[in-house]
């Protein structure tokens, strides 16, 4: 019975979300007809791939009720490291493996510090991010790395197409599919959610909660590395500021998706990041100056989180109750 109700509520939210995507898309298309051109849609798919991977990583961390602010730092260091490996003449897969290994190591450090030693998540990840951002300068002192980038084939990740869609979008969809399956259909996923919702109960149910928290940070760092890999593929060089714009869209995607679709999940993040990327690319097409876009994202994030918060709902409910009471009172008088 309640299961049926839940399904109804979920599908109502899903339909509402689809309607929102259509309304936003239509509004942007009206304001700027080029928004629906193939070039623009391709751009959205590419940007969504990079933003979506970073947001997916953050999703794991948010599910275990923590935060990660080291995303820009990890992206900078891993991006420069992969660039240095490519410039040294190694094949692409070596560079990617090195990047993933570095990301996993950094994520492990943050994750163990937070879960095993109980350090505060926000400040720890800010510190780790700062160290990584500094280490990004170790290779070249801050100069761009571009040697061997075209020979090694990294740009294919951006340009190549399979069945009419860009490779980066396929990568995104494949990773999201795996993540969705693990989080929704396996015991591992249940353990992640249990760790976030009630760590004590999860602990006594035999879940190694510390291990799952650490794992969330490792996954977040690896996803960040993959996101910055796609950014390197798009620009054809590595710079220390490449990952600087990954964090705000990631937070907005995760929390907006959770607000609209009723809970943090892989699918909610995918929906949130689709909306955010559409808006970002739409604004860019309309010629909105770069400095407004971050502000608008954060405004949308705040409005979304606020509109769907429990307090707002309670407030609206109490308002409705007062009105109903008044109505009833006036009815008695009349």
């Amino acid at each position: 019975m309640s299961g049926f109700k839940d399904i109804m509520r979920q599908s109502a939210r899903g339909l509402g979300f689809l309607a929102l995507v259509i309304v936003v898309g239509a509004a942007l298309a009206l304001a700027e007809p080029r928004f629906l051109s193939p070039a623009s849609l391709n751009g959205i798919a590419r940007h969504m791939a990079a933003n979506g991977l970073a947001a997916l990583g953050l999703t794991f961390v948010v599910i275990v009720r923590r935060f990660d602010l080291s995303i820009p730092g990890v992206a900078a260091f891993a991006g420069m490291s992969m660039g240095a490996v490519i410039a040294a003449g190694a094949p692409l897969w070596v560079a990617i493996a090195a990047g993933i290994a570095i990301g996993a190591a950094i994520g492990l450090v943050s994750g163990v510090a937070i879960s095993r030693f109980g350090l505060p998540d926000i400040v720890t990840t800010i510190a780790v991010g700062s160290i990584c951002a500094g280490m990004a300068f170790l290779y070249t002192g801050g100069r761009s790395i571009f040697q061997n980038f075209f020979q090694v084939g990294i740009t294919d990740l951006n340009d190549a197409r399979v069945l009419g869609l860009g490779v980066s979008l396929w990568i995104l969809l494949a990773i999201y599919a795996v993540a969705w399956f693990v989080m929704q259909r396996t015991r591992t996923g249940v353990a992640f959610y249990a760790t976030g919702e009630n760590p004590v109960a999860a602990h006594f149910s035999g879940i190694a909660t510390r291990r799952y928290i650490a794992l969330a940070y490792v996954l977040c760092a690896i996803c960040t590395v993959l996101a910055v890999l796609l950014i390197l593929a798009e620009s054809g060089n590595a710079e220390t500021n490449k990952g600087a714009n990954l964090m705000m869209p990631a937070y907005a995607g995760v929390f907006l998706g959770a607000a609209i679709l009723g809970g943090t999940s892989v699918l909610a993040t995918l929906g949130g990041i689709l909306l955010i990327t559409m808006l970002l690319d739409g604004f860019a097409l309309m010629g909105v100056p770069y400095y407004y876009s971050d502000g608008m994202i954060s405004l949308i994030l705040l409005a979304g989180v606020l509109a769907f918060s429990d307090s707002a709902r309670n407030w609206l409910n109490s308002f409705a109750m007062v009105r109903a009471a008044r109505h009833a009172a006036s009815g008695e008088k009349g």
Partner: protein
Amino acid sequence: MTMTLTRTATARPHSTRRRLSRLITNLWLVAALVLMTVMIASQRPQLLDPGNMVAILKSFSIMVMMILGLTWVIAAGKIDVSFMQVAALSNMLCAWGLSQGWGWWPAIAAGLAAGLAVGLLNGWLVAVMRLPALIVTISTASLCASLAAALGKGTVIRIATPGPLASLLEPHFGDAVPLIMLPVLALAALAWFVQERLTMGRYIYAMAQNEAAVRSVGVPVVGLTLVLFVFSGVCAALAGIILAENLASGQPMIGGPYLINGLTVVLLGGMMVHVGKPNILGTLTATLFIGVLFSGAALLGLPDYQRQIIQGALLLSGLVVAMLAARHHGERRKGG
């Protein structure tokens, strides 16, 4: 009151070793500061030149101004990552107002009003609407950064005429101390008094321990949270105005580096006097510590990114030490 009780309780065994260990936990950062200053000065005597001292103390004053409010927000168990962008916004608003011919006082008022408004927004969203403080302040931070950049269309706004604060930034007392330090220290002393002697200070620390319990004994938690965020916003805005005067310009990107600096200082400072709890005296000492460290690093010729690594490592090791100290303290209290 609670404080006095715990103090007498731990002092009762009155062994000199206990007293010594308490003195060390209270003042080790001061000792480290003196030691570091001596070490750097022996390598680079320029560190203590009046010109360099003025520079260190000026950035000390601005930094203290910026994070005075943040200290209490973190002490209350909340987080505010918008303070540096509030400073950037008030800095740009001040410079923009001057470029529109408002004159200095209206421009300063506008900057402070911006800090007040953002503080109220943060406080309302966190205290009344119960949203997570990180999500709220990360959003308002990028909102402020966006507005700050938009005011100057992405570039710097120059300020032609020196304002009423200019004389405060001039060196005095043997050309080594900027006058601005005195009002900033006076404000910090007032904050120290509030924190140590008034019930408000007790409430702040109690909130970090158990907000629900504090709420149920009748402490106005919502109002207090609102006040803390507003105080943080106004302090940061004031720092932004001092920066406008100091740099004779409004700089939209000025906020960035202050985030990690501010958090490092507050948490490092939280490791002295009341171990594990951010406090005003600790913030003052840690700000000077970081100031001397950075000035020394620059004199020793370390590039920027190495400073960034050192600072991150400092913050991380600070967290570990604070954790260990808190655990040690807790065990000892349990044992006694």
